[in-house]
């Protein structure tokens, strides 16, 4: 079959306002047979322009998933704003089987009310209908919530548009290198710096409540692990032992953090309990043990170890027992990301001198490369497991990219200046 890989190169983003975003997202490879959806511009009762073009945000979200093909505005046969305005015969038979319509109003108290409906044009019936009231700064999030509702209704899978991504931005200016830990919306908008340093930052990890980040900072010329509350900005130094303090990973219940510490001499996996401050050593091996990640049930950890000579993935039960090796194919497997369902593990897979993101199926044992390399690293799952974000290099510059868990949809996230790396997709935010 020709062109299973269609290069869409949807440069969605020559709209003003979006150009100012720190991260520009391009769908570089989409799926043939994506479902058409008509997202009609929302009615606006106010004067001048609406503060946000909600329909454009929804259409961009759905298009980015690779599973939907939003109908271009000039191809819309009509612009209804509610079910009772939809003349079904104008939509049936080609344009789109699904319509998203809605309206935006400013309320007396200054907030905004968003109403929208998802309509099945074939049956002429409403599939979903909601009303949201939000302050102006939350209008983009309201649009992402609409995308989530539409996506879930049409795919059966929870949407992850109303989420965030944390990443490290690096700007080199001659001899001067600056690092910033940033948090942006999952579509790259609204980037905010939460921590800035002249020394490296790495390994951000989200707390399951989406309110805190743990990360490694070299601000004191050595690796240390900090926790930062995102709304207050309050920082707590969690680990500053002799040797390495690295690879923080928050437990699914939010009560513990897995860490790599080398205070006993060699890097080993430890678990820090946030409730009582106790620290427990989980692995004891003279090899390198690092990059712990929690299985979704919180009972075991997946980690990287070179105890067999080369880095490979292992799993250790927190109740005890010997770690079991998980990865067998390839010379180098590390930096695991566990899918939310716990059945799949993404990793950095090194072979033939290159590093790609590969997905290990724990049930069948098969390992499948998702990306082409040669410098791909730091995979992180969307909370619904549909996509992975990772770091890669483009023209010698660090950029972020995303790939669907089936390997069919590819995106690039490009910044205007500097490099980005170490992405971490947030949990669901509500």
């Amino acid at each position, binding site marked *: 079959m020709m062109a299973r890989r269609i290069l869409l190169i949807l440069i969605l983003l020559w709209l003003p306002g979006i150009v100012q975003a720190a991260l520009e997202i391009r769908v570089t490879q989409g799926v043939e047979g994506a479902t058409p959806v008509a997202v009609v511009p929302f009615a606006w009762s106010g004067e001048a322009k609406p503060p946000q073009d909600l329909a454009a945000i929804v259409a961009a979200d759905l298009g980015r998933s690779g599973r939907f093909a939003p109908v271009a505005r000039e191809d819309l046969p009509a612009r209804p704003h509610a079910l009772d305005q939809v003349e079904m015969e104008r939509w049936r038979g080609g344009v789109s089987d699904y319509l998203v319509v809605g309206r935006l109003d400013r309320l007396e108290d200054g907030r905004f009310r968003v109403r929208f409906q998802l309509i099945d044009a074939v049956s002429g019936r409403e599939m979903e209908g909601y009303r949201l009231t939000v302050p102006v700064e939350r209008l983009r999030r309201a649009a992402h919530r609409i995308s989530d509702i539409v996506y879930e209704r049409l795919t059966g899978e929870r949407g992850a548009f109303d989420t965030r991504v944390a990443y490290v931005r690096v700007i080199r200016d001659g001899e001067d290198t600056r690092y910033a830990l940033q948090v942006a919306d999952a579509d790259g908008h609204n980037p905010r710096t939460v921590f800035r340093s002249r020394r490296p930052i790495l*390994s951000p990890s989200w707390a399951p409540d989406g309110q805190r980040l743990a990360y490694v900072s070299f601000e004191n*010329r050595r690796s240390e692990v900090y926790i930062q509350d995102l709304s207050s900005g309050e920082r707590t130094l969690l680990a500053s032992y002799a040797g*390495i303090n690295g690879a923080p990973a928050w437990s699914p219940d939010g009560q513990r953090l897995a860490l790599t510490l080398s205070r006993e001499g060699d*890097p080993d996996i430890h678990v820090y309990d946030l409730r009582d401050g106790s620290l427990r050593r989980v692995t004891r091996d003279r090899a390198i043990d690092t*990059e712990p990640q929690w299985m979704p049930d919180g009972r075991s950890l997946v980690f990287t170890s070179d105890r067999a000579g080369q880095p490979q993935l292992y799993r250790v039960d927190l109740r005890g027992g010997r770690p079991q090796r998980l990865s067998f194919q390839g010379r180098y497997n590390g*930096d695991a990301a566990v899918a939310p369902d716990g059945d799949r593990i993404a990793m*950095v897979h090194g072979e033939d001198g290159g590093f790609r993101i590969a997905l290990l199926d724990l049930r069948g044992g098969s390992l499948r490369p998702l990306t082409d390399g040669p410098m791909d*690293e*730091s995979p992180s799952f969307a909370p619904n497991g549909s996509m992975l974000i990772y770091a890669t290099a483009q023209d010698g510059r660090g950029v972020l990219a995303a790939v669907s868990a089936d390997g069919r949809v590819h995106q690039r996230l490009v910044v205007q200046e500097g490099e980005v790396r170490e992405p971490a997709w947030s949990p669901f935010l509500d």
Partner: protein
Amino acid sequence: MPVSNTGPTAFKILISFLLATTLAACATVDRSPGEGGDRTPADGSGGGAGDARGAGDAGVEVRGLGDGEGIALDPLEDPDSPLSQRVIHFGFDEASVPAQYLGLIAAHGDYLARNPEQTVRLEGHTDERGTREYNLALGERRARAVQRMLELQGASADQIQVVSYGEEMPVDPASNEAAWKQNRRVEIVYEGDQG
């Protein structure tokens, strides 16, 4: 693995050390406030031995400990001394010290053993290949390999601080073999040095 063929080097270090210490001792002079200006101790005696720090109002206290920077006779500053070489390079994904660096490390270990006040930081680095946290661990493994050799040479554990930067601070940020070779390294940083 300790190295035995450091005889001439060790001897040279010893001479330098004794000379520096002797001159430093001579140069420790107390002067009362307001008396004279800053006289450089051991002036004209062939290099000066000491870090002359004018203390202004409280007069001048000249300290020459013979252990640090700015002394012409300090082997640390002697470009002909192996001590002036402070970077050890490694093979890909390797943490064993290549044989060509054994003499260099022995000289540093020897120097530290003779200068127990002196401390060093061993900074371990890797190239960009492989994952960042694994490389943090690999950088530490390299620095610890150097640490063990310094200790075998007589340096004490509390003179040595080990830190790993993994792949985060490359000498050359390019993505090619030449850059990677430069970046896989342990840097010996003496306390008081920039770094």
